[in-house]
């Protein structure tokens, strides 16, 4: 049973629309991440958060923005979608407060197509 949820699973939207991809986790993890995944390419970290009111840009530049108002919620927003934003977006979380290393837990992803 998934403890991290992403909605929608699939989204087809027109150019110029504003979209928000939702990500929620029920594990109380302090850290959350957004990765972008294109076919045949490595996952690229685009945003991460160490906790409430903390957001950082990842290794890959992205026109999206994120917010972390609640521990369990880490939405990603595109103000004006473009075809170049077509990709799969994966949300993940981890817990840095426990002893030892807690592997990332991933959601099922949102496959975004901008037409």
């Amino acid at each position, binding site marked *: 049973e*998934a403890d*991290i949820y*992403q909605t929608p*699973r699939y989204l087809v939207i027109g150019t110029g629309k504003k979209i928000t991809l939702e990500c929620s986790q029920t594990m109380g993890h302090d850290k959350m991440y957004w*990765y972008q995944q294109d076919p*045949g*390419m*490595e*996952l690229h*970290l685009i945003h*991460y958060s160490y906790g409430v009111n903390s957001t950082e840009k990842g*290794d890959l530049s992205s026109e999206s923005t994120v917010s972390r108002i609640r521990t369990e919620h880490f939405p990603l927003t595109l103000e004006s979608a473009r075809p170049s934003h077509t990709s799969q977006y*994966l949300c*993940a979380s981890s817990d*840095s*407060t*426990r*002893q*030892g*290393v*807690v*592997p*990332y*837990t*991933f*959601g*099922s*992803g949102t496959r975004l197509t901008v037409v």
Partner: protein
Amino acid sequence: AQSVTQLDSQVPVFEEAPVELRCNYSSSVSVYLFWYVQYPNQGLQLLLKYLSGSTLVKGINGFEAEFNKSQTSFHLRKPSVHISDTAEYFCAVSDRVGSNDYKLSFGAGTTVTVRA
């Protein structure tokens, strides 16, 4: 940040045959190593991890991996695959940032297709 190279982008294999997926990373400084599997239309699921200790790590679904520090490798193996092992496999390597803090770098993935 770590650089992760998965040497094979596609691996076709017959059912019940063994499979090895190769992964090399850029630095031998203290790292954590992971293999994730992604089944079609799903997110990533942890197969196994190496944090310290024995260099041979056993994971779920009969997979195992061997950490080789001198060769900076973490190859994944399964002695006998099933059709259900058809999936994409990602190697991931971390840089230890703090005592419990790390950031993952992923390889480009290896697509395993198991045929009857």
